[in-house]
């Protein structure tokens, strides 16, 4: 495996070399700045407007770049790297189509608050605005889906811009920052003057909470009889998992983890109720609907969690909303106790005062619901069930693998049946729901975690949206285990068409897709197939025992639905449980 060792702590020798005030090109300045920010690996694709930047990489042994087969693959890889490591992910693309191919990836990161620095080339400055070859206004195009963006106007400002971009991407509510560098600026030479300070007048995120607000929450907990916590992606983003566990164990409040919050609180903990919302567990949804105190920690009351907002948590006498982003507070749900701050800081302070919520009858009721309404599916000895495959992966990896998913039914089954034990072990596009994300994001996750098992779980639809990156796995021997939950159909769309559109199945048939085993083999990746449980166990073990990348085509039954399911317009206690058939 040719994954470079993490260069977290820059060697002094390298640092001295990088900091030398030589007169160098803008491209060399860019690479030096990236290395000084601690960047271990950049994902990218060259082209005309970034030729100087790629020229500077030539023969540069300190700088690691992974060539993908599509710019979308590059940015999803950078995203997977960022989600799984907590560091800022970096990708590079050329102007025009290179840049526009990044847009889906930028929006994916923006919706889930993932820190990325996205570098695009642009045409030479004098040609900007003339509809030159491969010119687009990428800062304009991406304005609604970036946290901030820069169009670099002089080579001298490059070090400041790059340092600011990393600061903005990785602090506060994290997100993607785009730096557009015209070709003449990447060519122009200037003395390298690194920037170490950052001072941005309009950017000063509140990280320490108002303690009086936290005290109010502590009092509300003392008075609550049926409290519930919803823990979201903010817990993971803030690296506040340990603080959350301490808080929960002190207060004895049951926890629901959102899709992005999975792993932020260990699945399987006695106070864990599973995921709430659209495909949430019975217990999580009913607990929220019966809660007299609802505490949202780093979750933004997304519509897939709340479903019908009128009638969400109707019995809550008090709602606490903890978020780093003041704009999230009151956006969807008006809280009684808003707390703006970094989740880690908020919980660290709360933990100094937290005491147990009084009522143990509530916990007994939660336990009863967990026993009476566990997640379940009808297993089969003749057909391979997708839920069985996920359970099998969970059991064999003991919930310790990094799992990336694509979008659709398999994503929900992963969220339900894989028991994530650690933060940053699920890599999934929650907000944007980006098909094509699952596989390339696993490449990035593996680059950031060379010693861990990375399993990419995809549907047969999504894998075809970025399958070209199989080449990257093969050439670089990146040992991702690529699972295809192959039901020959766009399953989630099929499910909606079955349940909501009177079985009017429109354009969901994926039969005639390539033989995925042969596709993998065409790229030089080992391919395996399973059509029943026995084969599934055997080939999965073979995949785990294979040192390099493997694609496993699990031929699962076509008509399986994800349950529980709350349909649009219904409150989360109105669940279809799948027994209705």
């Amino acid at each position, binding site marked *: 495996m040719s994954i470079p060792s993490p260069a977290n702590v820059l060697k002094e020798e390298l640092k001295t070399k990088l900091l030398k005030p030589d007169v160098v090109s803008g491209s060399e300045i860019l690479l030096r700045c990236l290395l000084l920010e601690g960047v271990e690996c950049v994902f990218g694709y060259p082209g005309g407007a970034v030729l100087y930047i790629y020229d500077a990489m030539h023969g540069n042994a300190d700088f690691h770049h992974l060539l993908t087969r599509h710019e979308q693959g590059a940015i999803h890889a950078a995203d997977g790297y960022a989600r799984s490591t907590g560091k800022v992910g970096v990708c590079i693309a050329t102007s025009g189509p290179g840049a526009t191919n990044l847009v889906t990836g930028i929006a994916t990161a923006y919706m889930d608050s993932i820190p990325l620095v996205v570098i695009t080339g642009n045409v030479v400055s004098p040609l900007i605005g003339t509809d030159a070859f491969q010119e687009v206004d990428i800062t304009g195009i991406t304005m609604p889906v970036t946290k901030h963006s820069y169009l670099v106007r002089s080579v001298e400002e490059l070090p400041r811009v790059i340092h600011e971009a990393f600061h903005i991407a990785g602090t506060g509510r994290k997100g993607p920052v785009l730096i557009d560098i015209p070709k003449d600026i990447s060519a122009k030479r200037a003395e390298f003057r690194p920037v170490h300070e950052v001072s*941005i007048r309009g950017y000063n995120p509140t990280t320490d909470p108002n303690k009086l607000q936290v005290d109010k929450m502590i009092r509300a907990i003392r008075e609550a009889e049926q409290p519930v916590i919803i823990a979201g992606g903010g817990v993971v983003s803030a690296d506040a998992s340990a603080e959350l566990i301490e808080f929960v164990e002190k207060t004895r409040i049951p926890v629901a983890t959102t899709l992005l919050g999975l792993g932020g609180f260990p699945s399987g903990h006695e106070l864990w109720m599973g995921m709430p919302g659209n495909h949430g567990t019975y217990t999580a949804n009913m607990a929220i609907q019966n809660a007299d105190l609802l505490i949202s920690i780093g979750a933004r009351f997304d519509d897939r969690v709340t479903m019908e907002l009128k009638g969400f948590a109707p019995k809550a006498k008090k709602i606490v909303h903890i978020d780093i982003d003041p*704009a999230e507070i009151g956006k969807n749900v008006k809280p009684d106790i808003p707390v703006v701050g970094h989740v880690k800081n908020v919980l660290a302070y709360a933990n100094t005062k937290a005491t147990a919520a009084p009522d143990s009858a509530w916990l007994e009721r939660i336990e009863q619901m967990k026993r009476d309404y566990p997640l379940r599916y009808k297993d089969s000895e003749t057909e391979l069930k997708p839920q069985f495959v996920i359970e099998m992966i969970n059991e064999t990896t003991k919930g310790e693998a990094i799992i990336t998913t694509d979008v659709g039914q398999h994503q929900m089954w992963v969220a339900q049946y894989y028991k994530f034990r650690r933060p940053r072990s699920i890599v999934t596009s929650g907000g944007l729901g980006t098909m094509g994300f699952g596989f390339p994001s696993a490449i990035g996750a593996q680059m950031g975690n060379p010693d861990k098992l990375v399993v990419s779980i995809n549907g047969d639809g999504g894998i075809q949206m970025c399958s070209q990156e199989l080449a990257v796995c093969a050439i670089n021997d990146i040992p991702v285990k690529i699972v295809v939950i192959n039901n020959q159909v766009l399953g989630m769309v099929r499910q909606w068409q079955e349940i909501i559109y009177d079985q009017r199945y429109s354009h969901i048939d994926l039969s005639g897709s390539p033989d995925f085993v042969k596709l993998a083999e065409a790229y030089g990746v080992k391919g395996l197939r399973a059509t029943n449980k026995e084969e599934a166990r055997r080939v999965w073990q073979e995949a785990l025992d294979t040192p390099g990348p493997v694609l496993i085509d699990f031929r699962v039954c076509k008509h399986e639905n994800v349950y529980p399911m709350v349909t649009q317009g219904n409150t989360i206690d109105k669940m279809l449980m799948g027994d209705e058939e």
Partner: protein
Amino acid sequence: MIDSRHTISVLVNNQPGVLQRVAGLFGRRGYNIDSITVGASEEAGLSRMIIVTSGDDATMEQIEKQLYKLIDVIKVIDLSSNPNVEREVALIKVTAEPSARPEILGVVETFRASVVDIGPSALIVQAVGSADKIDAIVELLRPYGIRELSRTGVTAMIRSLK
């Protein structure tokens, strides 16, 4: 909740694209813009935008918070919650045959407006005042035939407190 009119002052970095960032935010989140003016502020490098919008309290709170998320936004003040001065300039080209001029000049005088250009058959009237006052003079001049109307949009500031 009732929508009400608000005048917001937004101090921004004078950076390329800053108007697009602010206007784009209003557009994509469905906030209304009645008028927007941009110009220099008291500090070099910073511009001041005055935006007239409308919304209920929750919308106004979101507008302020979302504006603050823009890195180039330094300060947001809802001027409507304070005693303030609002002014707008309008240039009104009104048909004015010599026979109609005395009447028109009467209107101009009443509104403390002024005539800034006289042509053979038209006058340009310059009016300064609150948006309501501009509305009023425009309505009074309309019967004579308004050929062209150009309004700057509102600019405003909070009154100095004693």
